[in-house]
């Protein structure tokens, strides 16, 4: 190391390194979050897989019954025999239930598909550039990923306004929204409400995540965006979620604020510009 003033090249190299480190941190925080969600996601998938799998086996036995009837068309001596078999296999029930069985199984597969594609959207690494994106779609994706963390803790209420597409890095905003949603669920002790609100106000969009949880005390409220600050027990939180969220929002030239009343709940509000002020600026 020399003590000479750093040249421009040095400065740039350092900046690039910092940027790289920041990216890595972001990515590992994201993976850590996904890891913490994994048990919940497994649960979300095991439920539909459970009933679809069982339905398929029921379908097999239904088909065996139906084939007994169709095969008998050739061998039966009279129509009466066929009627007897039809009665025997409870044809009317089979007919009605087959429709339900297929509809429910399709629903199950759809759910697995939604969860998997949400996970994929969510863990997407590549895109690092600002693109026009639909915030509501990102919020829905994130809600799908964290559904299992939320549904036993809170009713999720969507109060969506009309939003234009905004210039953003959606995968990063998804991560911010996920942090806010998971924190909201953790703040709720029994069963509460989480409200996700969006609105469009002159050139900006706002996203609010409000919970009816235990709230944040005033001395903690000032520190929540600090790196490694956490009130969760060791191993439960990295203390990086909100600090990275803060960085992401800042990178989007937006701001994130929290207001809280202990005992009543917390509201986070993110304000983002619809268009980024300088398209050449990659932070």
């Amino acid at each position, binding site marked *: 190391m020399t003590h000479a003033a750093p040249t421009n090249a040095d400065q740039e190299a350092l900046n690039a390194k910092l940027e790289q480190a920041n990216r890595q941190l972001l990515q590992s925080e994201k993976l850590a979050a996904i890891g913490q969600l994994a048990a919940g996601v497994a649960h979300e998938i095991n*439920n539909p897989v459970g*009933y679809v799998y*069982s339905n398929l086996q029921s379908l097999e036995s239904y088909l065996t019954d139906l084939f007994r009837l169709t095969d008998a068309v050739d061998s039966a001596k009279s129509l009466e025999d066929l009627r007897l078999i039809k009665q025997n296999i409870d044809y009317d029930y089979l007919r009605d239930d087959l429709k339900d069985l297929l509809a429910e199984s399709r629903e199950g597969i759809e759910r697995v598909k939604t969860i998997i594609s949400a996970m994929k959207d969510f863990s997407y690494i590549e895109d690092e550039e600002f693109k026009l994106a639909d915030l509501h779609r990102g919020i829905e994706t994130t809600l799908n990923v964290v559904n299992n963390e939320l549904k036993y803790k809170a009713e999720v209420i969507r109060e969506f306004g009309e939003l234009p597409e905004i210039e953003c890095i959606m995968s990063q905003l998804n991560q911010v929204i996920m942090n806010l949603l998971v924190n909201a669920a953790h703040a709720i002790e029994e069963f509460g409400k989480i409200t996700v609100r969006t609105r469009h106000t002159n050139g900006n969009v706002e996203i609010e995540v409000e919970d009816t949880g235990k709230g944040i005390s005033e001395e903690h409220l000032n520190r929540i965006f600090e790196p490694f600050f956490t009130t969760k027990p060791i191993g439960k939180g990295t203390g990086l979620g909100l600090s990275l969220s803060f960085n992401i929002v800042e990178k989007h030239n937006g701001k994130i604020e929290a207001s809280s009343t202990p005992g009543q709940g917390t509201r986070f509000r993110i304000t983002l510009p619809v268009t980024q002020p300088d398209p050449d600026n990659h932070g």
Partner: protein
Amino acid sequence: MIRIQLVDDEPNILNSLRRLLKPQGWQIDTYSKVEDALSGLLEHEYAVIVSDYQMPTADGVTYLQFAKQKQPHAIRLVLSAYGDRESMIKAINQAEVYRYLSKPWDDYEVVAALKSAIDLYQLHKENQRLREENDAQRALIKAREDELLRLEADNPGITRVQRDADGSVLLSDD
């Protein structure tokens, strides 16, 4: 008739289980809300209760603990998509479940578990019936003995009267 209660917050799970169990000819009651399942406990007597683990208003262990108080003879099973140690330990120690089944399940395994749970239920029932019968008979015997003792106290010797083949009282010298 064997009556089985299934509790799961997911109606599709309940429907697929109903399909699976239909050929067995058991009466199947399904509940997607814990509150409704609780009132079901007051209306019917169940041989087996199968509950999901994680549900919105109460977890399966809490529910089964309650069910155990209301219907101690019903055999309790958990069917859960969470196979973690903690939930299993809670289910075994707190709700005293007979089997812990996981989702996705094997149809054969579920039917086999239910059948053996029903066997156990019937065994307990039979035990109880026999015990009650035994108690009743003992009570009968005791009542008779008491009566004999009372007669003997009132009229010493009356319970030891010896009779002839034609019913006449035999008097001996001692």
